[in-house]
């Protein structure tokens, strides 16, 4: 079956056509052929100037990630026919959120510098190095260890799309690989750094990273684990942790999301004052949430009992009651 591939071409060194453009190729596709095999066919039989990265062809090296029909995919593990049948097109572009260098090749330097920021090596203490890595301990970091650093998650990350300084899902998953390791000795220092601006609390929970990771690393899950660990380590003086803490408080108190109380507790007094103009607009439209006026759910005692039980299991101090 002949299928039209529409490929984004770009060569800034080409004096005549330095701007990106789309070029169509007609490819004879056979059952089982991967997108990468189709690209190799184009480059070998039709157009040797087409540039793209690839190596292992077995979803291990992580080189061949590209945008296929709008989403980041590892092209060696994506078959053409089912994809074409579903999407009705075959458009290949470089990974999003990364600067294209030529055709489908992108600059991975920012990706690596984010990984570097996560200090991707163990920093044990003399005691922690002797902690035994049991099967259970290993299971905690199993997901994060599957990462092949292809960049699909960072390319899909909506937060990174808007804020290039955000640490991103790949480096966050890598950070959990070490924070979650029983032999690590600097969890507190790592978690404090990860809780800073542009750190793990800036994730917008769009779930693109976990959806499009070709190795099921579940970066969002690792971000959640880092956030939980940071709060357990008492790193609470940041908007992200305050927001979560306010939610935990609100649900235990009334069983519901108390929007006004949560805003105030997350922002604190001074930043809440900055919200007053917005609050007036909301009030005029009958939308201003009023704190401490929302009714409790029925049987709130059940919710509080569950909190108590879980506090006990987690060895957590019960929250202070504000009655």
């Amino acid at each position, binding site marked *: 079956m002949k299928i039209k591939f529409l490929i984004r071409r770009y060569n800034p060194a080409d004096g005549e056509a330095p701007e990106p453009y789309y070029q169509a190729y007609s490819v004879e596709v056979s059952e089982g052929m991967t997108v990468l095999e189709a690209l190799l066919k184009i480059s070998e039989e039709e157009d040797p100037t087409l540039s793209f990265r690839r190596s292992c062809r077995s979803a291990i090296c992580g080189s061949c990630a590209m945008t296929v*029909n*709008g*989403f980041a995919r590892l092209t060696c593990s994506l078959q053409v026919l089912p994809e074409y049948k*579903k*999407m009705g097109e075959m458009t290949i572009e470089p990974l999003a959120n990364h600067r294209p260098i030529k055709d489908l090749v992108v600059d991975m330097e920012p990706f690596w510098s984010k990984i570097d920021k996560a200090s991707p090596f163990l920093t044990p203490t003399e005691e922690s190095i002797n902690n035994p890595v049991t099967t259970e301990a290993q299971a905690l970091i199993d997901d994060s260890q599957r990462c092949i650093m292809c960049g699909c998650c960072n390319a899909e990350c*909506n937060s990174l*799309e*808007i*804020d290039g300084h955000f640490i991103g899902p790949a480096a966050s998953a890598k950070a959990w690989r070490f924070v979650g390791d029983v032999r690590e000795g600097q969890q507190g220092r790592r978690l404090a750094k990860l809780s800073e*601006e542009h750190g793990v*609390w*800036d*994730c*917008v*929970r*769009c*779930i*693109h990273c*976990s*959806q499009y990771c070709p190795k099921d690393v579940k970066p969002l899950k690792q971000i*959640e684990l880092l*956030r*939980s660990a940071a*709060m357990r380590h008492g790193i609470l003086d940041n*908007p*992200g942790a305050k*927001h*979560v*803490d306010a*939610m*935990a408080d*609100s*649900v235990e108190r009334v*069983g*519901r*999301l108390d*929007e006004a109380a949560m*805003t105030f507790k*997350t*922002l604190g007094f001074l930043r809440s004052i900055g919200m007053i103009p*917005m609050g007036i607009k*909301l009030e005029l*439209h*009958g*939308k201003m*949430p009023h704190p401490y006026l929302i009714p409790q*759910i*029925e*049987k709130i*005692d*059940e*919710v509080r*009992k*569950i*909190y108590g*039980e*879980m506090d006990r*299991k*987690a060895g*957590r101090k019960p929250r202070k009651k504000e009655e």
Partner: protein
Amino acid sequence: MTRETDDSTRLVAKMLGIELHEMPKASCCGAGLLTDYDYPLYIALNARIFAEAEAMGMDILTICSTCLMVMSTANRDLKRDPKLLDETNGVLSRTGLGYSGKVEVKQLLWVLAGDYGLENLKRQVKRPLHWIKAAPFYGCHSLRPSDALGFDDPEKPWSLEATIKALGAEPVEYRGKTKCCGFQVDLVAEKTAEKMTAVRLLDGKSKGANCFVTPCPFCHINLDNYQRLAEKTVDKKIEMPVFHLSQLVGLALGLTPGALGLGRHLVSPEKVVR
């Protein structure tokens, strides 16, 4: 903040003959924040919600995509992992409750496009909205994670466009329809949230939309309530009315703007209501 979603959903359901039953015990799902706080607590609180539905002999309908995602993810984990279900039931039993894992969680969009059926919906339309060009804004939590949600396709979703068409309006195609509104970081990384909201609205606007429609009240908070802040961030006038899905359905069923709470929006939908 978006009581009009609740009101308009009840009105629309009544007109369509969809019977809704209150869940007076149900707590907040945690909106993802309790997942960050303590995963087992998040699972147990959601299992308590499922236990209530199970005791009522019903599935759950939510009008919020984030509730949908958070509950469905908890439900997936409980159904997948017998040990987790067991431990969670151990905690629930302290309150005399239990969950067997049989409840399904749905949102209004799925009930309309699935259970109720769009052909049936079409027959109920009294005022086809032929002048409306709506940008469908799914938001993240209607589509992902697809292994927990399952109803629609995360890369090629159809349900919102098909519902818009059933109402006689025209859906507008644009890349941002499956992307994030930024709500989750409204209070944590405001600049990211505001710029993201602006980028999504401008994306739909550039493709000719005269309004947005979303099945998610959190997306609505950003797209509508925070639209003025978003405009400031990118220094551009956007002026884009945003409907809750239930409101657009209600308009086509002949309900008045007042009954649907359109006056509560910060960006007036007046010019596209007629």
